[in-house]
C-alpha cells in the first residue's frame, strides 16, 4: 500500500510545491513544509523586523522612547536601527527569492478572498482548496515585500551619518514621513501575520521543526497536500516518522 502508485493520476507540477516539501505517511501523517535553511532565513528576518520595530518606535513617539534602553541608549539605537535594516533587507531578499513563486496569485485566491468572512468565522469547510499559501498569506508576503522596499529606500535617504550629502532637506522630510507611515503599515501586517500563526493551531511547528501534521495540511492547504501525495518523488521518509505500517 503505497501512496504513489505509478498508475494513479499525477497532478501537473505546481508552482507551489517547493523543493524540500514532502509528505511522510504514518500516524499522524507528517508533511515537510520548510527546509532548515528556509527556517533560519525566516527567523533572521523575524528577529530583525522585531528589533527594527522596537528601535523605530522608540524614536516614533516620546511615550516609547524608553525602548532605547533595550539597545543601550538613544545614540546606540540611532546607530543600530539602520544597520539592522540592512540585515532585514538582505535576509528578506533571500526569503523573497525562496518564496515568490509559491506566492504568485491564482484564480482561487479571488474566491478565497470573497469567502474570507467564512474563514474568520471558523467555517473553513466552506473555503476553496488552496495550495501552499492562501490569499491571506500571499497578501502578507507581497505587502511585506513592497513595504520593506519602501522602508530601505526611505531609510537610506534619512541615514544622515553616511548619506547626508546626497539628498536635499526637502527630500529627507518626505522620506521620514514615508518611512514613519510605512513602518506603521509594516507593523500592522506583522501583527496580522503573527496573529494568524497563533490562531491557526499547528502552524508554529512549520517554522520551528519545519513540518506540520497531515491533518493541518488537509485542513488548510488541501490542494498542496494532494499535489505532494501525487508527487512522484515522494519518499517514505528518511526521518523514520512514517512507515505506512506503523
Amino acid at each position, binding site marked *: 500500500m503505497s501512496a504513489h502508485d505509478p498508475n494513479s493520476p499525477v497532478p501537473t507540477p505546481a508552482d507551489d510545491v517547493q523543493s524540500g516539501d514532502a509528505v511522510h505517511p504514518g*500516524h499522524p501523517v507528517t508533511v515537510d513544509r520548510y527546509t532548515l535553511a528556509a527556517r533560519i532565513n525566516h527567523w533572521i528576518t523575524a528577529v530583525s523586523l522585531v528589533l527594527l520595530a522596537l528601535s523605530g518606535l522608540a524614536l516614533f513617539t516620546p511615550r516609547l522612547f524608553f525602548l532605547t534602553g533595550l539597545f543601550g541608549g538613544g545614540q546606540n539605537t540611532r546607530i543600530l536601527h539602520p544597520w539592522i535594516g540592512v540585515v532585514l533587507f538582505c535576509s528578506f531578499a533571500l526569503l523573497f527569492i525562496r518564496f515568490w513563486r509559491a506566492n504568485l496569485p491564482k484564480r482561487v485566491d479571488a474566491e478565497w478572498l470573497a469567502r474570507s468572512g467564512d474563514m474568520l468565522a471558523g467555517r473553513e469547510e466552506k473555503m476553496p482548496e488552496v495550495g501552499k499559501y492562501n490569499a491571506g498569506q500571499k497578501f502578507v508576503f507581497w505587502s511585506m515585500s513592497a513595504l520593506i522596499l519602501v522602508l530601505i529606500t526611505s531609510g537610506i535617504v534619512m541615514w544622515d551619518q553616511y548619506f547626508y550629502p546626497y539628498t536635499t532637506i526637502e527630500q529627507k522630510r518626505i522620506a521620514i514621513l514615508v518611512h514613519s507611515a510605512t513602518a506603521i503599515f509594516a507593523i500592522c501586517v506583522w501583527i496580522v501575520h503573527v496573529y494568524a500563526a497563533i490562531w491557526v493551531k499547528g502552524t508554529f511547528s512549520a517554522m520551528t521543526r519545519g513540518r506540520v501534521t497531515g*491533518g493541518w495540511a488537509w485542513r488548510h492547504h488541501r490542494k498542496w497536500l494532494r499535489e505532494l501525495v501525487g508527487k512522484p518523488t515522494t519518499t517514505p521518509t528518511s526521518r523514520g516518522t512514517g512507515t505506512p505500517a506503523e
Partner: protein
Amino acid sequence: MFPPIPNPSVDPSAVTPRFGEKDIVRRSASTVEPPAQRLTEVAKLIDVTKCIGCKACQAACLEWNQLTEEIGINHGVYDNPMDLTENTFTLMRFTEWENPETENLEWLIRKDGCMHCEDPGCLKACPSPGAIVQYSNGIVDFQHANCIGCGYCIKGCPFNIPRISKVDHTAYKCTLCSDRVAVGQGPACQKACPTQAIVFGTKEEMKGWADFRIKDLKSRGFENAGLYDPQGVGGTHVMYVLHHADKPSIYAGLPDNPRISPIVETWKGITKYMGMALMGVAAAAGVLHYLVAGPNKVTEEDEENAEKLTSGAAVPPPAGPAGNEGRPT
C-alpha cells in the same frame, strides 16, 4: 548709537544665572509645566545695512565657544567656510545683487545662524526628551547630553541651521550665547561687532531700535527697508534689518515666508496619532477575534483524511479548477 551693554559686575553674588531649568517653556519630546512667570523676551538684531563683512562676529563665535574650524580651501568667494558646520554656528554669506531699479551692484552680507524661533521646528521634530529646550526669554538651546544625533532637527528647521558633529554625533547650532546672557552679557558676536550692526537687548527694545534704523534708511531712499521677524514661525529672537525687506530671499536664500514644513507637521502630527491608533486597532482586533471565534484547530477527521489520502484510500474529492468543490454557486 545704541548704548552698549555695560560689562557685568565681577562680584560673585551678581553671577547667579538669570535663567535656567525653571524657565523652560518647551522641551523636546516632553510636556512641561509652563513657568508661572515669563521672562522678558530677548532678541539679537542684525542690521544687514550696517554690516561691513569683517567677520569679527564669526571669529568671536569660534573663540567664545572654543571651536576651531577646519582649514578650508579658497573657492574664489568671500564665504568661508562655504556653509554652516558643527563648528561654525554663524556664517557671513555674501551676495552680489544687481538692483534692477537702479542697476547698481549691491553687496549684500547676511550673518546666517539660528533664528531662535518662537515656534521652533527643530524642537518639534526632535524625538529625544530634553535634547532641545526653549527658555521663556526666547532662547532655543541644544542639550548635548540628551542628543542622540538622529538629525531630525535638521529636517524640522525652516532655516537649515543645525549640523551634526562627526566627532560626538550630536547636533550643534548657535546658542545665542545662553551662557553669557545668563550672567547679563550680550552674545559674543554682538560684543565683537565694530559697527554695531549687531545689537542685543529685549525684543521690544530691538524692535524700537529697528524702527529707528528703518526710518533712517527710508529717508535715504531705501523705501522697502524693513524688519525681518517672520510671523510664520511666531516671530524670531534673532531679527534682521534689511534694505529690501520685500525680498528676503535675495540675501543668500533667506526664506521669504518661513514656517515649519507641512510635511514635518504631518509627520509629527497626524502620523503619530493615526499610527498608534492603527497599531492598537490591529492588535485589539486580533485579541477580540480570538475571544469570539476561538482557535482554529485541526480535527481528528482532518488527520484521518490525510492518512486516507496518503494511503490511497477514498477521500473527499479534489476541488474543481476554481476550487468550487461542487458547491452550487
